[in-house]
C-alpha cells in the first residue's frame, strides 16, 4: 500500500519537479513533521494528517496558534512549516529565504439577521458594504440598499455592524476586499485587525455569529466553512463581472480558477474581485511557508510529501469540511514551485523519487 502510494507520488513529482534523482523512495514510515500557524485550516490539516497517518505512518504535529504566530515560528525555524491566512509579500519572503504556496481555498461571507428576509434574499455590493461598515448607511431601508434590492421589502431597522474582535485572516481578507473594491474604505485600510469606525467585535467566527443571530438588523462576516456548517443567512455579493453570486464552493473555485497566478511571485495573490461571472468576490487561499534551504532534507521532503498527498487524495476530505480544494492547474503550478526548496546539498528535496 505504502509502496503504491509512493510510486504514484513519485510519478507526479517527476512531472512537476526537476532536480537530482538520487533521493530515497519514501520518507521513513513514522516520520514526524511539525507545523504551526493559521487556525482556519487547522481542522482540515488534522483530517489530512489522520488519513495520511493511516496510510503512510507520517505524523503531523500542527499547532493552530494563529497566522501571526505561524509566521514568527517559521522565521525562528522552530517548525518545519508555517501556515498563514495572510500571504507574505515577495520581498518579505526573500528577506527570510522563505517559499510560499497555497494549500486550500477559503473565503469570507457576509451574514445578516433580517426578519422576514430569506437567506440570500438581500444583495450587497462592495460600496454598500463599505458604507455600512463605515457607519454611513445606518438603516436597512436606506436608498443605497433599496436600489440594490428592487422588489425586496427591506425592514426599517437600524443596522448593527459586527466584526471580528480578534486579529484574524478573515478580517484581513474582508478589509482587503473593501480596500480593493470600495475607494471610501481607504480611510480605514486593511489588516488582520483594524480601527473599526462603528460596530461590535465578536471573538472568533462563533462570537460574530452569536452577535448577529441575537441582534435583529445585524450584519457580520464569517469564514465560508463556518457559514456553511452553521447555516448562516448569507447575503449575495456583486462580483467584478457585475453578477450577484451566492457563496458556494463552485463560486470560490471559479474565483481561484480565474486568477492569474503566473503573474504572482511567491503566490502572493488575494483572489479578491476576480473576473468570471461565477466568481465569489471575497476569496482567499491559506498559505504554507517553508524555508527554501532545508537544514534537513528528509524533513522538507516529508512536508512536501504531506501536501502532495493532500493535493492527490485530500479533496474529498476538504469538501466534507466545507473547504474548497485548489484547482488542478494551480496544484500543478504549486508542485512546480517546490523545486526551489532544496536540502543542505542544494538539491531539491522533493526531487523525482527515482
Amino acid at each position: 500500500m505504502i509502496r503504491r502510494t509512493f510510486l504514484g507520488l513519485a510519478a507526479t513529482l517527476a512531472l512537476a519537479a526537476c532536480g537530482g534523482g538520487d533521493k530515497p523512495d519514501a520518507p521513513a514510515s513514522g516520520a514526524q513533521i511539525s507545523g504551526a500557524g493559521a487556525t482556519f485550516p487547522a481542522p482540515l490539516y488534522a483530517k489530512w494528517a489522520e488519513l495520511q497517518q493511516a496510510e503512510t505512518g507520517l505524523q503531523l504535529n500542527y499547532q493552530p496558534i494563529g497566522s501571526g504566530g505561524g509566521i514568527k515560528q517559521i522565521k525562528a525555524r522552530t517548525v518545519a512549516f508555517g501556515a498563514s491566512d495572510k500571504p507574505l509579500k515577495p520581498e518579505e519572503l526573500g528577506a527570510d529565504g522563505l517559499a510560499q504556496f497555497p494549500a486550500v481555498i477559503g473565503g469570507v461571507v457576509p451574514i445578516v439577521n433580517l426578519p422576514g428576509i430569506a437567506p440570500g434574499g438581500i444583495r450587497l455590493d462592495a460600496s454598500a458594504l463599505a458604507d455600512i461598515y463605515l457607519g454611513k448607511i445606518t438603516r436597512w431601508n436606506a436608498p443605497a440598499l433599496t436600489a440594490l434590492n428592487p422588489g425586496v421589502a427591506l425592514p426599517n431597522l437600524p443596522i448593527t455592524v459586527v466584526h471580528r474582535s480578534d486579529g484574524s485572516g478573515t478580517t484581513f481578507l474582508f478589509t482587503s476586499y473593501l480596500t480593493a473594491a470600495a475607494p471610501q474604505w481607504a480611510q480605514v485600510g486593511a489588516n488582520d485587525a483594524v480601527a473599526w469606525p462603528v460596530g461590535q467585535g465578536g471573538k472568533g467566527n462563533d462570537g460574530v455569529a452569536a452577535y448577529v443571530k441575537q441582534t435583529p438588523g445585524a450584519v457580520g462576516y464569517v469564514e465560508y466553512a463556518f457559514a456553511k456548517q452553521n447555516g448562516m443567512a448569507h447575503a449575495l455579493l456583486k462580483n467584478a463581472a457585475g453578477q450577484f453570486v451566492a457563496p458556494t464552493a463552485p463560486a470560490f473555485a471559479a474565483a481561484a480558477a480565474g486568477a492569474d497566478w503566473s503573474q504572482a511571485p511567491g503566490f502572493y495573490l488575494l483572489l479578491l474581485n476576480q473576473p468570471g461571472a461565477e466568481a465569489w468576490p471575497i476569496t482567499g487561499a491559506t498559505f504554507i511557508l517553508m524555508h527554501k534551504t532545508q537544514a534537513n532534507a528528509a524533513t522538507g521532503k516529508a512536508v512536501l510529501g504531506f501536501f502532495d498527498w493532500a493535493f492527490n487524495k485530500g479533496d474529498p476530505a476538504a469538501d466534507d469540511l466545507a473547504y474548497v480544494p485548489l484547482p488542478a492547474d494551480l496544484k500543478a503550478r504549486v508542485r512546480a514551485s517546490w523545486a526551489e526548496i532544496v536540502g543542505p546539498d542544494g538539491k531539491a528535496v522533493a526531487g523525482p523519487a527515482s
Partner: protein
Amino acid sequence: MTAAVAVIGEGRPRQARGVVLDRAFEWLCFGAASLLLTALAGVVISLTIGGWPALAKFGPAFFFSAEWDPVAEVYGAAGAVTGTLVTSALALLFALPLALGVAIFLVELCPARLRRTIGTAVELLAGIPSIVYGMWGLFVFAPWFVKHIQLPIMMSVEPGSIWERLTAGVPNGAGILTASLILAIMILPFMAATLRELLLTVPSQVRESAYGLGSTTFEVVGKVSLPYIRTGAVGAVMLGLGRALGETMAVTFIIGNAHGLPTSIFASGSTIASTIANEFAEASGVLHTGSLMALGLVLFIITFIVLALARLLIGKQVHG
C-alpha cells in the same frame, strides 16, 4: 559534670543532623521565596523590554490616548484601561453585598444541615473555568439580559436626557454592564467563600456574649463579627478585585470589543486583558506587539496599586 558532658557528647550526632536539616530547610524556603521574586522581576523586566518600542514611540500619550489603529500603527491604552477599571469597579459593587449576604447566611442563619451543601456549592462555583462563564454569558445570559433589563431600560428613558446617552447601545446584550455582571458572578463565589472562612474565625464566646446581652442577629453581625474580620475582609475584596481586573476570556466574549472610551453602560468596550487576548496571536508588527506588551505592563501596575492600597487599608485598620 562528667555525666553532663557525656550526655552532650551523645546528643551531638543527632543535633548535628538536625542542624544540617534545618539549614537545608532554611535554604529551601529562601530559594522558594527568592524564585518567586525572581519570576516577578523577570515578568516586569520582560514586559518593559517587550513594551519599550511602543512606550518609546508614543511616550506618555500612550496612557492618555484612546486611539487604537493597527493599520496606521497608532496605539493608546486609555480605552482599555477605562474599560478595565469600570467593569471591575461595577463588578465589585454588585458582588460585594451578595458575597457578604451569602457568607453571613451560611455562618449565622443557615441550618447546620444545609450549611455544608451550600458551602461546597459556593466553592464549586469558584472552580468553573472562565471560558464557560463567557459562553454562558454570550449565549444564555445576554439574550435574557436584553429582554428583561436592557430593552425595558432603553425604552423607558426620556429621549434627549442624559439617561438616554448613558443607556445608548446595541440591544444585543454585549457591553460594559453585561461584562460587569458576568465578572460579578465570577468573583462572587471566591469572595463569599473567603468571607465565610473569615466569619468562622470569630470566636464563638464573643458572639455568644453578644447574643447573651440581648443583641439581634443583625447587631451581632454588624457590630461584632464584621468589625472583627474587617482586616481580612479588605484582603478578600481586593483579591476579588484582582481577579476581576485580570479576567480575560469571559469578558472577551461579552464586552463587545470596541476600542476607545465607552460612552454608556450598554456600549461596547474593551479591557486590557481582552485586547491582549484578541490581538496577541495575530499581531506581527513590532509596534503592535510592543503596545500589547505595554498594556500588560499597565495591567501589572494597576494590580500592584490595588494590592498596595489593600495593604495600606489593612495596616491602618490594625493600628487604628
